[in-house]
């Protein structure tokens, strides 16, 4: 297995597991920024983490070979939307 796969697979699993924040289940406090209950703030932070993980995936595991398909087939006629 490639090193990249060995590192990225556990990363994805850990991020998936982090979604289940059982430690915040019955907690409302602290209120983040003075008004966001901790459970909601954590999950909002999780969304930002998800975006960061996607950025890592795009940088390190992008299926570059698919870009070659563009070269193989003709370009679509007409303007780009």
């Amino acid at each position, binding site marked *: 297995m490639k090193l990249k796969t060995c590192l990225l697979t556990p990363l*994805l699993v850990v*991020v*998936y597991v982090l*979604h*289940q*924040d*059982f430690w*915040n*289940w*019955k*907690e*409302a*406090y602290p*209120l983040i920024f*003075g*008004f*966001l*209950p901790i*459970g*909601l703030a*954590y*999950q*909002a932070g*999780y*969304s*930002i983490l*998800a*975006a960061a*993980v*996607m*950025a890592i*995936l*795009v940088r390190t595991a*992008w*299926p570059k*070979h*698919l*870009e*070659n*398909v*563009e070269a*193989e*087939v*003709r370009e*679509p*006629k*007409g*303007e*780009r*939307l």
Partner: protein
Amino acid sequence: MIPVIVICIYLVIIGVIGSLAYRKSKANTEDFFLANRSVGEMVFFLSLFATNMTAFAILGSSGQAYRQGIGIYGLMASSSGFVIPLTIFFIGTRLWALGKRFGHQTQVAFFRDRWECDTIGTVIFALSTLMLVPYMIISIMGGGTVLAHLSDAGGTRPPIISYPIGCAVVAVVVTLGVFLGGMRGTVWVNILQTTLFLCFGAVAVVTISHALPGGFGEYIAKLAGDPKTSFLVTRQKMPPQAFWSYTLIPLSSIMFPHMAIMCFSARRVTAFKRTVVLYPLAIMLIWLPCVFLGVLGAATLGKVADADGILLLMLEKYAPVWLAGILGAGIISAVLGSDAHQVLALSTMFTKDIYQHYGGREKYGEKAAVHFARAFIIIVTLAAYIIALELKAKQGIFEIAIRYAFSGFAALAPVMVAALFWKRSTKWGALAATLFTAACLIYFALLQNFGHPGDVIWQIGQGKDAIKVLFLNPRGDVSFWNGFMTVVPMVFGSAFSMIAVSLLTRAPSAATIAKYFPKQGTVSVGRATEPPPAVEQYIPKAA
């Protein structure tokens, strides 16, 4: 009256964009259904996002948060923000490449070619259509309800736009946009729509915060301090099993025909890069304010008759009327954006997977296919409109249908994964997984309709140690293994059917495997060692 005027202006703009797209259109199906596969990066993101966001993201999320609290965000939004971009990254990009190379315009065309079998495509087509139609009907119902809400001056007078007229407005605007502009018109309109509803949440939060003298913190502390309402700012009433089960639901996204068809429309595969990174943030921008305001509504407005209207009630109370109009347009945007893609997807599937596949194009030509698609759009929207009026009182039935449709599409995800990544997968495996999904949907829907809350269908053991394998929970929803949602057995059962039956049956031909899985050193999807034949060569066979 002002909100109605603002919404009317918005609808006129939508109509103008649709007609401009019509002028640019060409009389072939690739242009009509996929905008000639020419959608650029940012437009692709905005349009794909609009495809997936319904009115539920704004009204339903705040309504559910009003009833169940902040947990709704983690339950539906943050898990989607992780799983949906993952599916777009791994599956969407591969679908794009296959569409580009082999000319596929729908998932069904791909499945038929991948497993050398018409039947599997037809079965998946029938199941997808059955699961998509209620979704489309409820979009029209939602649009009618929103327009009636926004035009009744907070319930002080009968609505200027009644429910039937509201439904008609949504149906006509969607039909015109899709009929005239096809995918191009829909995508152009999505730019405006997504921008509007992405701004919606932040504007609503800022406006309402200015209108509340004590600030948000005071109200949240009030909710947390009262034992009767403290569950709204925690997840104490939310079963952890349901919370985890929901992480499987976003697998449905890529299996929705309108989402898959969007993936075929991108000009370059690099369009997916920005989409997968921005997707979680965009979901947060919409859901976080709506969930928060839904919870806040419980503190500021107390008990309301219609929880799903909580956001509209807050806007009416705390926002100036003109702003309420613009925000209302944001909500309508969500309705129209997804509904247009659903209508277009149904039209694409009927035209490509049924009409053309069974010889329509050879008989009547390419231009006639576009006419067929347009006629179909009118018929299907008219039918949805009539159903939306006739069965308004039975809206709950459609909501149940959609709930199971999400599970159903999620259960079809293993079929797609196998088609793309597992050489040994067979048509029989795919057929078994699809039939398993259909059987589960029918069985669970019957249980939900004819059972009673608390009914236990299957239990292992007795007394305190008993494990309830299949039962109806106190709310009447079918549940599995002490509280997991039905999506869990459906997804794992479908995956098991796919694997087991594939291993027991004959693999696809070497030619097909070589076509979809070329040897090492070449591209894993859609790249052959020799230069490929022109796209057109595949079209009659594949589409």
